């Protein structure tokens, strides 16, 4: 692929005998907002360090703008970097902090001024330029850190979980500003996070990292609707998907919660049924799995209510809108039934994580 901003080919890395990344590959076209989403401990930070050149891979290649940089110095890779922690120089003003990476590149005074103006406007920190880091709130510091990363004149930026630890409302604003920044700059963003909601709100392309490799990649909506791996369903979605362990025999999925016929061909053995919370519906329906349920907690998110329901053998999550009065009335009643349409029940091979089929009929 020649039009890729960033391409990773079969990258592997172990620490001692512990494999962290194994034959990980992906390619990101230019001008994309790509998000790598993986649960904590899946090797995200190691991947970031390998792309930046701060660590050496055991095998595999890193290509930036079509050029093999696997053995190049970090500085020569020309990737903008936005770290997780602010790391601002305390005795520099905000302006000086933003200029600093440009100074290292011997930028002229005009170039520096132009870059500062541009990123300060994008991140809405123009009025903070004269201040020192100690005068800023946590959210403002992270805005400055992001601005500093974006000030570097390049076309590929790596954002390493930059909103982690910020409170919810600060994140909401920064998510908007990051999306607008990427569009206005017309550059490639590779954003790494373990926060599912962040990935869903930011990504044009999403890459799911699990077990040291990218298990699925594609346009956000396609990946969300058609998970080919259990890790995709488990990682990408808020609230998290419902997972029910069981066994596939003669195309029948059996578990202590329900048993259904599936369209699975050529697989028998341990399996997991995955159902998104929005596919668990209140009431009864023919040709659907119907279960008696008991509410154990209703979490109020404002616009939605997430209910945690006890059903035979497991706990299920369900989402209803605050304006759905009938649903809320049902959730407060003692006799509660829920149903799941068969095609919305996706079955995965428990060992490999691969999708093997969907529900088709009741047993």
């Amino acid at each position, binding site marked *: 692929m020649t039009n890729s901003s960033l391409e990773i080919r079969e990258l592997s890395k172990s620490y001692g005998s512990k494999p962290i990344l194994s034959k990980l590959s992906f390619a990101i076209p230019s001008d994309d907002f790509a998000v790598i989403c993986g649960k904590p401990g899946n090797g995200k930070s190691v991947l970031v360090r390998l792309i930046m050149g701060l660590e050496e891979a055991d095998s595999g290649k890193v290509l930036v703008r079509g050029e093999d940089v696997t053995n190049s110095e970090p500085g020569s890779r020309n990737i903008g970097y936005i770290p997780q922690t602010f790391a601002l120089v305390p005795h520099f003003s905000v302006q000086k902090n933003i200029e600093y990476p440009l100074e290292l590149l011997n930028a002229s005074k005009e170039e520096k001024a132009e870059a500062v103006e541009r990123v300060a406007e994008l991140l809405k920190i123009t009025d903070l330029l004269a201040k020192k880091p100690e005068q800023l709130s946590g959210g403002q510091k992270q805005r400055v850190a992001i601005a500093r990363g974006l000030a570097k004149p390049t076309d590929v930026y790596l954002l390493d979980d930059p909103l982690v630890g910020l*409170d*919810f*409302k600060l994140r909401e604003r920064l998510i908007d500003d990051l999306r607008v920044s990427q569009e206005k700059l017309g550059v490639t963003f590779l954003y790494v996070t373990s926060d599912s909601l962040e990935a*869903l*709100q930011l990504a044009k392309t999403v890459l799911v990292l699990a077990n040291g490799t990218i298990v699925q990649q594609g346009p956000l909506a396609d990946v969300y609707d058609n998970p080919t791996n259990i890790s995709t369903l488990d990682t990408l979605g*808020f609230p998290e998907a419902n997972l029910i362990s069981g066994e596939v025999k003669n195309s029948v999925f059996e578990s202590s919660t329900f048993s259904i016929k599936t369209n699975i061909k050529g697989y028998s053995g341990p399996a997991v049924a995955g159902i998104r919370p929005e596919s668990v519906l209140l009431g009864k329906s023919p040709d659907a799995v119907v279960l008696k349920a008991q509410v154990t907690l*209703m979490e109020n998110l404002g*616009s939605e209510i*997430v209910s945690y329901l006890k059903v035979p053998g497991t706990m299920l999550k369900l989402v209803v809108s*605050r304006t759905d009065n009938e649903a809320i009335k049902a959730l407060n009643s003692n006799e509660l039934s829920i149903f799941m349409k068969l095609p919305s029940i996706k079955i995965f091979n428990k060992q490999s994580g691969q999708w093997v089929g969907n529900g088709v009929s009741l047993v």
Partner: protein
Amino acid sequence: MESPLFDIKLNNLTKKFDSFTAVNNINFTIPKSSVTVLLGPSGCGKTTLMRMIAGLEKPTSGSIFFEEHEVTRVSTRRRNLGMVFQYPVIYRGTSVKRNLELPLLSEGLEKQVINDRVHKVAELLGISDSLNKLVEELDNGTRQKIAVGRAIAREPNIILFDEPITNIDINSKLELKRSLKELFGRLSQTIVYVTHDQTEAMTLADQIALMQDGVITQCAPPSEIYSKPGNQFAGWFLGNPGMNFIDKKHLTKTDSTVGAPTLFSQTLRVGARARDVAVLGIRAESVSVSTKEVSGAKPARVLRKSLGIGGQYLLDLDYAGLVIKVRVSHAMGREVSDKVWTTVDSDNISLFDENGVVV
């Protein structure tokens, strides 16, 4: 649990740290036998306010009453409170049972009474099976439950919670939240709970006291504070995303009506205060979206599409320069391409004045 019912009254309560005013002249009553959540961003004064109720911080001015008794200068120990903090306060190297007993032993209660209380508290918190375990054997969510148990075992009049879920690991958070919700339903004490987490507040509270810059800007039940915010701050702070705000330049006003012709076709009958309206507030889910032209609906360009809670789509819509966020179902979101038509129900529009206060 049997206990006299106490309300808490705060009169002109102020706390200054040097030149910084953390709590600014608050007058507020916390009703008895209810769960009041102090909610707000970091630095809003919620923890300082709770610490003054607890007697851990001395007010700069003002007074605190528990029922008719002034307690402003009464020591923490004599206020008869239970307290639960961010990190579980428990005795390591001892059993769960011992941890629950210890606060009762110092009260000089009879052995049988202590034993009954310990079992009652363990049952309330769902930890009866763990009574003989060492606290080291338990995850930190269960340890926090023990800390809660220690606070309620003495049967105080008032129980204070300072972000008890914030530092609990993600796997135990939900169970702790569930357990607290159930517990709050069964206790008759006055409960004051501090958090910055809106979901926690909306889930646990009978009423939310929303704080900003040292003052309580609104106090109301969760559903009311969400759907009828008393000010712009409440509209923004609660909800993901927060409320959309439509500013003056998009509004048309008469002496009794307000409209926003780029966004919706109807005019809102406001009455005498129409001229005071400076900003409209609309929740993302209050906008009805169609992919086909509908009479009376306003056209908008789809700037961005993303996914949100429960697979719903969030759309950034542009009405000739006015950009708002709307929320649509997953099925509808998939259909949406570059243009949509929308309507807004008049009942779901909040009106704010120049100062951001609801009209």
